[in-house]
């Protein structure tokens, strides 16, 4: 909201320093997002008369203008066309610096030297008008050479651009901001000038107002204004509006906007002649009704929207013939708009239910200054004061304006102002700072709260009608305490760093996540962050017949499905690097992938819907680590090697790589294998290569292999499913080990790791078994291959003799035989 300092000063005395004021406004939670200095940068701009206009050869957009600003003819190149010889326009001479810091220099265009710039109103930041130059003859009687500031009677001003929080509808007005400042500075808040109705004809004899939907409309006032002459507003009204960011339309509309900006009450003027029976009635819109709003758009009313809890309820204003005049509190209709010929005005000032306005405004995609205020909550007691102010402003241009006595004032349901019991220690218990009770009382009263002293230093606090944000009970106490703290100043409150006996720390799961990330990075993988939302195409290639989880309102169609795997994102990232000439890239990501509740073994059931009363099945979230190995020499064996190293660093007891029929979507069907905990049989991931079909999504990489490692962190974290090495450390024997090599012919169905494990467990004297060669050849029986192991044998209490080694060797051969392997 734009708050000119001159307007604020009408209500409260303020310090001179703009910087200090900015600090105070910020500290009150009325955050200053920008400051505009009106009149700044106009010091050097003067009135000039256009004496000659010449075309420039070869240029059809610009012309050579000769002007006189009191110091003789001056040539200027100008691109505007809305003026003629004899007009007076603003001239920024060479050396002038316009608002916003634009410095005017001598420039040459098409061989013509321009000695300054003729300005539009927008260039001078006087209005939004950029249609052409600001032709001064339209506004004033100009005098050559006169400073523009003097000619236009511009008073320097400072405009704060304030960001007003959603819980402060009262601050969405000049007087609301002034009230906060008055409270902070401990100064009185002045009242504006209000008009009184003209004694004589009572309003009720010529107009009427009714509320048919008292839950939607808490108050309707209808005033009748006679002897209206629609015309321009006085310049002080125009200037105020423009500084606050609104354009002057006519004295009646301006008065309405002025009051809204100043007090926060939107009002709506109707041409009384065009309102049947001079009657305003508030009711629910009926299905099938429509309305052409002031912006020329036809609105279908009472049509349910798709938002949660949107029933399509619209509140409308109708006339005596039940014709819809406007969408209440949002925008009026064309039919009853005031015009130049209007002489009698029916003025509506009302209070509407904030939620109703919010829903209607959202559904119709129609936001107005009025709806903005009503949906946050207008002071229900403000309506007639706002009318009195409206009349006082309009009387400046229409002195004989008649405001009929006894304006109509009907009531519906209005929220009761909250009453809160503030116990004597509540402020200290919440803020940790003890504030003297008289200070608390003074601050609250300055904000318009009624405060009564109860027993034992407790306070009974009643919120003003302008503060619908103040609730009751414990929540209301918190609201009131925030007000106390705000006026006192957050920066003056005590700070204390709390301590507690409970230790901080990471869970084993979080430790594991960090560990695996560290190991991955240590082994040469760069950590990536790929999108959670992917395309149909990538989903089709990387899911196992599962159901896609779609986003209802995606930003782009290729970002519409929750990823079933991180693989496609990583492959795309790898491809992007290759595109940029970075050919050796290994990327890994730790993140969440999603499974549709329909496909999940056990759904994640949670509460949802209005009031949390519905049971909802949410997608299963599975945390995984996915790595793609994309160095030019990488393939499935690189991935297997990487896994072996990671498994070792994670201290896994015995996870083996085991070929499987279907390694899963996205994995290379014949070059990938499962990671299996031998003891539990639980699969914790996939190792191998990326399916060539997926690689084909990336341009220019045909024939390249991409190693793949994909680990389920949820499974890995389960130490029952995936066992860890024993914590107990073994002390190696002092006696030398005997090393023997054994080569077996084993059927393809016998896993090398299983045979190795069998050999390891054959006798306690086996120290280690390591596979060192695999041989497949025509000289071996079909369906078999040779597996060669190095076996270390040792004893803790003796050196093994040759005969003992030979016996052990025979034992190992027997064990291998039990698994179907024969010594080669």
């Amino acid at each position, binding site marked *: 909201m734009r708050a000119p300092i001159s307007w604020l000063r009408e209500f409260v005395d303020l310090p001179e320093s703009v910087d200090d004021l900015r600090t105070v406004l910020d500290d009150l939670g009325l*955050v200053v997002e920008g400051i505009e200095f009106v009149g700044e940068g106009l010091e050097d701009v003067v009135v000039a008369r256009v004496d000659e206009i010449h075309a420039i050869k070869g240029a059809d957009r610009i012309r050579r203008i000769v002007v006189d600003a009191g110091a003789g003819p001056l040539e200027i190149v100008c691109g505007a066309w809305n003026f003629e010889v004899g007009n007076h326009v603003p001239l920024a001479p060479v050396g002038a610096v316009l608002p916003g810091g634009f410095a005017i220099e001598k420039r040459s265009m098409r061989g013509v030297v321009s000695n300054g710039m003729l300005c539009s109103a927008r260039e001078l930041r006087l209005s939004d008008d950029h249609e052409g130059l600001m032709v001064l003859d339209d506004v004033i009687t100009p005098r050559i050479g006169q400073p523009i500031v003097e000619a236009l009677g511009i008073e320097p001003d400072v405009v704060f651009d304030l960001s007003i929080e959603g819980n402060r509808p009262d601050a969405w007005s000049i007087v609301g901001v002034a009230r906060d400042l008055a409270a902070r500075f401990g100064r009185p808040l002045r009242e504006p000038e209000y008009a009184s109705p003209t004694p004589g004809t009572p309003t009720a004899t010529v107009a009427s107002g009714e509320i048919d939907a008292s839950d939607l409309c808490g108050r309707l006032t209808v005033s009748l204004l006679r002897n209206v002459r629609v015309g321009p507003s006085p310049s002080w009204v125009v200037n105020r509006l423009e500084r606050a960011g609104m354009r002057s339309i006519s004295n009646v509309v301006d008065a309405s906007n002025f009051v809204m900006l100043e007090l926060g009450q939107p009002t709506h003027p109707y041409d009384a002649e065009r309102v049947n029976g001079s009657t305003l009635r508030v009711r629910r819109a009926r299905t099938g009704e429509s309305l052409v709003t002031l912006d020329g758009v036809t609105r279908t009313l009472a049509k349910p929207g*798709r*938002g*949660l*809890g*949107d029933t399509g309820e619209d509140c409308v204003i109708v006339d005596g013939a039940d014709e819809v005049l406007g969408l209440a509190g949002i925008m009026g209709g064309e039919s009853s708009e005031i015009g130049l010929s209007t002489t009698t005005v029916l003025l509506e000032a009302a209070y509407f239910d904030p939620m109703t306005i919010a829903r209607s405004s959202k559904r119709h995609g129609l936001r107005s200054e009025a709806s903005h205020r009503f949906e946050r909550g207008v002071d229900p007691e403000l309506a007639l004061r706002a009318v009195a102010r409206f009349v006082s402003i309009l009387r400046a241009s229409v002195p004989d304006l008649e405001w009929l006595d006894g304006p109509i004032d009907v009531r519906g349901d209005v929220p009761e102002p909250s009453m809160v019991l503030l116990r004597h220690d509540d402020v*200290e*218990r*919440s*803020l*940790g700072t003890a504030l003297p009770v008289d200070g608390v009382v003074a601050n609250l009263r300055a904000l318009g709260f009624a405060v009564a002293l109860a027993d034992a230093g407790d306070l009974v606090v009643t919120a003003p009608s302008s503060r619908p944000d103040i609730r009751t*009970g*414990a929540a209301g106490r918190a609201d009131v305490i*925030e007000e106390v*703290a*705000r006026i006192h100043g*957050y920066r003056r*409150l005590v700070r204390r*760093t709390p*301590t*507690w006996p409970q230790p*901080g720390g*990471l869970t084993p799961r979080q430790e594991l996540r960090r560990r695996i990330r560290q190991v991955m990075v*240590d082994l040469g993988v*760069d*950590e990536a*962050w790929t*999108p*959670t939302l992917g395309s149909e195409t990538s989903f089709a290639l990387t899911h196992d017949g599962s159901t896609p*989880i779609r*986003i*209802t*309102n995606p930003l782009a169609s290729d970002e519409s499905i*929750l990823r079933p795997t991180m693989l496609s994102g990583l492959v795309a*990232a790898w491809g*992007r690097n290759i595109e940029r000439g970075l050919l050796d890239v290994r*990327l*890994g990501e730790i993140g969440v992938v999603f499974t549709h509740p329909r496909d999940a073994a056990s759904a994640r059931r*949670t*509460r*949802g*819907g209005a009031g*949390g009363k*519905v049971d909802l099945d*949410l997608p299963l*979230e599975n945390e995984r680590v996915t790595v793609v190995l994309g160095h030019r020499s990488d393939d*499935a064996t690189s991935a*297997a*090697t990487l896994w*072996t*190293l990671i498994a070792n660093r994670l201290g896994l007891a015995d996870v*083996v*790589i085991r*070929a499987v029929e279907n390694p899963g979507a996205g994995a*290379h069907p014949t070059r990938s294998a499962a990671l299996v905990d031998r003891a539990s049989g639980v699969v914790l991931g996939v*190792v191998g290569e990326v399916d060539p079909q997926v690689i084909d999504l990336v341009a220019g990489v045909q024939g390249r292999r991409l190693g793949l490692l994909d680990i389920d962190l949820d499974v890995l974290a389960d130490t029952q499913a995936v066992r860890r090495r024993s914590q107990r450390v073994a002390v190696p024997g002092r006696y030398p080990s005997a090393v023997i090599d054994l080569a077996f012919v084993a059927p*393809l169905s016998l896993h*090398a*790791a299983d045979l190795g494990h069998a050999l390891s467990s054959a006798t306690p004297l086996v120290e280690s078994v390591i596979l060192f060669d*695999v041989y497949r050849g025509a000289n071996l029986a079909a369906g078999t291959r040779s597996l060669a192991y190095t076996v270390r044998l040792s004893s803790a209490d003796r050196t093994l003799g040759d005969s003992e080694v030979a016996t052990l060797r025979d034992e190992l051969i027997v064990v291998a035989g039990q698994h179907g392997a024969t010594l080669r």
Partner: protein
Amino acid sequence: MNLNDELIATITAEALAALAAVDTIEELDERFPSIVGKRSAFASMQKSFGSLDPEQRRELGARLQDARRAVEASVELRRIDLRAAARTTMLEADRLDLGDVVVASQSWAVTLGHAGLVGSTQAELEDVFVAMGFTVADGPEVESDWYNFEALNIPPAHPARGMWDTFYVDLGEPETVVLRTHTSPTQIHLMESAVANDSLPIHSVAPGRCYRRDTPDARHLAAFHQIEGLVVDHHITFADLAGTIETFTRAYFGPDIESRLRPAFFPFTEPSAEFEITCTICHGAGCRTCSNTGWIELGGCGMIDPAVFESVGVDPDRWSGFAFGFGIDRCAQMRHELSDMRALIENDVRFLGQFA
């Protein structure tokens, strides 16, 4: 059957026979024109219709076209089969039993990887809070509207929901399942489970990924990371909140960086505050980054709103608490003077390689 129909039947049969003789996808591509394409019998028959009268030409042409389409469909089916066969052959030729890979014989050349900027920043932030006595909590990225909004005192259709540009997930009733727009739902999970297990107090931070439906630019991404703090204990006050923010600020950003609070509005805290820290670029002198104020906004905080306590069943007379939240990515952006956030999701290794 007239002569033309016979002819169509014949060329159809010939085309299908020729198709059956094709064994590879390359062969199919090569022979396509002569089976059903420009050099096929269908094409030449079509040409011969030139001399017929229009009515007859149309009628015959339609029949020929039907026959040709049927053959084309067979060609496409064949193409799919051949492609699948080619893939199977290729995959079989490529077969590798990873169980038989002799890992011991593979060498792993030493290369250095790099942790991502966001992940590292998150770990650093967690470490600061762990040292201050906080535990770390995880929460889901897909939430119901109850956890993301209503339990946090943001009722349905309330204008405050407009503060978050929400991605809705197509599950359940419209607008009931969302990609969480902030980490605050984790507060609700933490309090609910503490109440259910009778395990209050809570001193936790909850980092994680959040989503807002906002077109990405240099300063924002549609996905981002936040860290949420939640303390629920006896006798917790606003002073504890301000002190916690202050201690964290100095510990993470450095001893010369201060924090300050100013009033703000969040539906789930009251009193609420925005917290600002000394601009890390100019150290308070005023610069472009901080719009010459010397301060930059970091996040929001406040005392837990009694309405939130009510929705999770915490007794506000026995317990009080505070919450805060701020952007992890934003901390990273500030510390590393990152000029374009989009670099974070491009995963260019020249970008990633800059981080230790």
